[in-house]
């Protein structure tokens, strides 16, 4: 079966040939199938965030191939890369990265602004997702007035608004307490059950020891050390 | 999600107001050209006027077209400009004028 995401000897070097050159990722080869839940596990500086961002079409590798849903993204022009990123991926960032002083609804609708759908349809979609995540009543509240758990759900709602196939989460439990972490993992599990592929970068054992994780990719010093099924 | 409608509507109103003002200008100008300007020209013609009656503080500010280069310095050659109107009247045309010679406009 063709993998949904395939990386072949992917290397990423930041600031090449400069004094502050950083080899963040070295010859990473990885396949991720549709519907899988994969964790990129490793300490800070292991290259997991870099690999995650490359898989998510947030940047291009210095060398190697990345194939997402049959397309080699390394060669695509920026506009197409953005299109794939918008349609295929939903991102949950470590610090949520919500726009402060903006309402919940406006934050979650951000990915839909550059898309050709009407204001009315946009709003309907947003309200539905907020309803599903139980924060519809906070729709018009500015995000900086929300609790940590509510912000987390807004971040998830924003990641889901475009109906992506793949959810990318970078250290999603880094700033959460145990209860909120449990809630988050339950939501991700529900998303996986509904057919979404989930890729998480983390060094939190609460995440990678969770039963719904199917595969763990061990990383250290920019290299994949081990890939094992749970 | 109404802000764009408000902005576009407001901008449209501003443009409409400006267009109205400009159209008003055009119609006022043509009315004045028809009514007032010929009457003012009549005055200029019969009274042989050469200047507008704007700044009456000095001879060269009242009749700048008739003033020679020396008039602003009439008190003394190094006399500085002391009438505010003198700073509105640029010296260009007077200073740049050379003696009239035959054939030169």
């Amino acid at each position: 079966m063709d993998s949904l995401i395939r990386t072949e000897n992917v290397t990423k070097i930041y600031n090449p040939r400069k004094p502050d050159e950083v080899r963040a990722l070295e010859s990473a080869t990885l396949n991720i199938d549709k519907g899988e839940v994969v964790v990129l596990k490793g300490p800070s500086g292991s290259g997991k965030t870099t690999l995650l961002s490359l898989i998510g079409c947030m940047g291009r590798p210095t060398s190697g191939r990345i194939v997402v849903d049959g397309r080699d993204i390394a060669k695509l022009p920026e506009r197409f890369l953005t299109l794939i990123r918008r349609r295929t991926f939903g991102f949950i960032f470590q610090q949520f990265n919500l726009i402060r002083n903006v309402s919940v609804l406006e934050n979650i609708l951000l990915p839909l602004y550059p898309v050709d759908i009407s204001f009315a349809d946009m709003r309907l979609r947003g309200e539905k997702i907020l309803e599903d995540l139980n924060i519809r009543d906070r729709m018009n509240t500015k995000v900086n007035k929300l609790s940590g758990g509510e912000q987390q759900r807004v971040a998830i709602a924003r990641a889901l608004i475009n109906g992506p196939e793949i959810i990318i989460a970078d250290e999603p439990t880094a700033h959460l307490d145990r209860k909120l972490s449990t809630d988050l993992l339950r939501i991700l599990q529900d998303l996986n059950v509904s057919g979404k592929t989930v890729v998480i970068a983390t060094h939190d054992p609460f995440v990678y020891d969770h039963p719904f994780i199917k595969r763990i990719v061990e990383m250290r010093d920019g290299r994949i050390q081990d890939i094992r099924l749970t | 999600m109404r802000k764009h409608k408000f902005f576009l509507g407001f901008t449209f109103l501003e443009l409409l107001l400006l267009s109205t003002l400009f159209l008003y200008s055009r119609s006022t100008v043509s009315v004045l050209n028809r009514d007032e300007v010929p009457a003012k020209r009549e005055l200029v013609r019969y009274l042989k006027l050469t200047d507008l009656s704007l700044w009456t503080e000095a001879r060269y500010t009242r009749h700048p077209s008739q003033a020679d280069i020396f008039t602003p310095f009439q008190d003394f050659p190094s006399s500085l400009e002391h009438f505010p109107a003198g700073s509105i009247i640029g010296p260009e045309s007077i200073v740049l004028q050379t003696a009239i010679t035959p054939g030169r406009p």
Partner: protein
Amino acid sequence: MRHLKILEYALSSLLRRKYRNISLIAVYALTIAILASVLFLTYSLKLEASHILIDTPDLIVQRLSAGRHDLIPMEYVKTISEIPGVGSAVPRYWGYYYDSLSHSNYTLIGIDGDIPGLSLLEGRMPSAPRECVIGAGVGSMRIVGTGDTLALINSMNTGVVFHITGTFRSVSNILTNDLIVMSSKDLVQFFDLPAGRATDIAVTIHNPNEVATIAGKIRTAHSDTRPITKSEILRTYDAVFNWRSGIMLTIFSSALIAFCILAWDKATGISAEEKHEIGILKAIGWDTADILELKFWEGIVISLTSFLLGLIAAYIHVFFLNATILSPVIKGWSVLFPAFRLTPYIDIYQIFVLAFLTVTPYVASTIIPSWKTAITDPENVMRS
């Protein structure tokens, strides 16, 4: 639809810093209002002058003595009349009168012969000795009108009483505000001008193309004369109301410098918060073109709104409020500055140039600092 939505987001973004942006629009609009007011005022006055002074005499011949304007001998009238191409040469009698009562200067003009009823005159022209017609400014200074008397002190320090037979209508103030018109004989007597001398000579010429030639001939015939052509008179007013000179230039450039400081402040970089926001937008699916369009809208909303508001304010200020704010600048020390309504002449070309000079740099200074961030890969957001 996409463009409207990005505009919607741009407006939300601007409203997040509501007070700052409203202040920015206010200052920007004020700057444009000042610039536009100067342009409207000077253009209006310039065109007014060019339209009404078109009937000024073809040539005015002055006599100079030691570089100063002196009275001209009547013999010159005959010599000038005999030059081929000259239609007529008529002496002009006029002078200045300082009124110590009102501390204002009047211009006295002497006329000869019959002048038909002028449409801008209420009453009639003087037809008998010691009669005069006055401008509205003189009337309001001395609180007199048609039918009243006007007492002036002549060169022998004697009071002379004139009977006012007419007053120029206020719509002609721009020409007649400080005028007192009397017969030439009365004026010569009043100023005690020497016999056989006039103030200058007004010359009409059959063929306008020959003005310069005839002016040259006059100078050749009388080397102490200074002929002033009609085109020179009109050019004077082009220069007078030119915004590129004098105090108008000072006002104009002060406003322009204020605007440049505003634009420079914007252009010197975007804040960390703005950079972060652009990074987030890129990460969630906005591409470079979308970000730049967002910045374009932000720039246009501020600059276009300010430009239009400034222009409307300038128009109302100049053409409905008679340039009240600028008028102390243009009035100078004139006690007798005419109260006139400016004709709303508009130069569309100037408006477009003003729009280009004010809107374009502001939009550019909004887009350009964001450019570098907009083209950066969003993975930096993941790394922040």
